[in-house]
């Protein structure tokens, strides 16, 4: 084993890279004498949190709700639809090509429509996150379910196993590596969906806040908002990774 492959060394490297980025950012701003409204220093960015007018905590909660809500809905709907397709070949042949086409729609372009349909606020932004996150989950799950050996399903059917048993004992665990690969892609997309929704129309959230402070050229606050959005995304991604680690055997994980 190469010495760089031990977990301890890899974690150290990862932390060092992040610290290095912040240091480079600091030096660039300080040495380059970059004006604050173009690029604030790390210190100035952190100080933006002290401004009570920005309602950071409320905005974090709103954006996180949209991201996590849309994401969870996408997970449930995506997996359920893919499962239903395994029950009916006709339904699958009808819907799957359609979904591939629908997946090509830039979901961001639906934003103005979603606002027409659902007004503005947390719900339409959750729908934005959902609409953009559901496809990768649905398509990878459908793929994973198709990969399961038909003979294995026959084995359970020969024992007169129910659909529910088939799903919980064979299909779901068998498709999990695929589901997780879709979930990781969806985690990144859900964040983008929610923020675009907030840009288009909302009165709360970190994306909304960015538009507000842009007017006054409060770049440190904009930076802070980006950092917080990233942290929410990392939290979601981290949870997905943790779940995968717990649920999927190492040799079965898809990279």
């Amino acid at each position, binding site marked *: 084993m190469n010495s760089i492959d031990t977990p301890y060394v890899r974690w150290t490297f990862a932390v060092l890279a992040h610290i290095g980025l912040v240091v480079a950012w600091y030096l660039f701003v300080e040495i380059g004498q970059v004006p604050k409204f173009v690029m604030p220093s790390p210190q100035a960015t952190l100080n933006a949190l002290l401004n009570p007018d920005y309602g950071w905590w409320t905005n974090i909660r709103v954006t996180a709700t949209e991201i996590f809500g849309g994401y969870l809905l996408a997970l449930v709907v995506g997996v359920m639809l893919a499962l239903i397709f395994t029950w009916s070949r006709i339904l699958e042949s009808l819907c799957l090509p359609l979904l591939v086409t629908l997946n090509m729609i830039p979901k961001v372009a639906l934003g103005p429509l979603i606002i027409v349909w659902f007004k503005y606020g947390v719900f339409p932004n959750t729908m934005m996150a959902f609409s953009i996150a559901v496809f990768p989950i649905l398509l990878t799950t459908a793929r994973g379910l198709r990969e399961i*050996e038909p*003979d*294995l399903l*026959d*084995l*359970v*059917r*020969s*024992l*007169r*196993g129910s659909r529910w*048993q088939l799903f919980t*004992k*064979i299909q779901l*665990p*068998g498709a*999990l590596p695929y589901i997780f690969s879709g979930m990781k892609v969806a985690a990144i997309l859900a964040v983008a969906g929610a923020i675009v929704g907030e840009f288009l129309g909302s009165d709360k959230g970190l994306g909304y806040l960015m538009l507000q402070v842009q007017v006054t050229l409060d770049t440190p606050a904009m930076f802070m908002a980006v950092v917080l959005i990233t942290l929410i995304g990392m939290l979601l991604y981290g949870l997905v990774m943790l779940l995968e680690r717990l649920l*999927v*055997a190492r*040799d*079965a994980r898809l990279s």
Partner: protein
Amino acid sequence: MNVEPFIRMRGVRKVYRTGSREHLAISDASFDVMPGELVALVGPSGCGKSTLLKILSGLHPHDGGAVQMGSPSYPFDPSRDVGMVFQQPLLLKWRRILDNVVLPAEILGLPMAAARERARDLLALVGLSGSEARFPYELSGGMQQRAAIARALLHDPKLVLMDEPFGALDALTREKMNLELLRIWKESGKTIIFVTHGISEAVFLGTRVVVLTAGPARMADNFEIDLPHPRILDIKTREDFGLYTRRIYRLLGME
């Protein structure tokens, strides 16, 4: 001594339809299987051997003729009297070996403590003691197939259907597994129907051989193998062994 057949097939027909095209998978299969027999179904690829097994397992309906399973003195419950072994071991790779073997008990809702106890005994029977807590990927192909056989026996089915179970193994492992199967068959007293395209394997294992030919799929012959038990590899050098195999080669048009 039980004289009533366990399985009685009379003029069984099976047609697969894809759109307007019809494919005759089995034209006319008639044979009996006595309780405790090991019947080898031999024939070239695409002769409907696997289809016959699917009909016997109750997974596919037949289109003509009669299939009678069980008799008043030897009752048969289709949901729990069939065990299946396929060409691939089809173990659930996220489960340990013991948890794989108890799968039929989970599907049938049998008491789990007793099932685990029985799974340990069966793993000992197939020569896998000590591998209970291992994962499938840690086992060789032959060992995985042994575990699959243990799984097929778990719910104590009267009938075990084997679809080319050793077809994916190397020649030496295959010989070894043949001897193992004969031992397991003797010790468990199961009725086994064993599909193979290995002519010598069919004669070596079978108390009876049913020969199927392809295009049009039909039953060509059905005869008892009058070779002594327990069978050892030396039997293959006997003159009557050669006569049996030549009889099959001739039927399959290879002589």
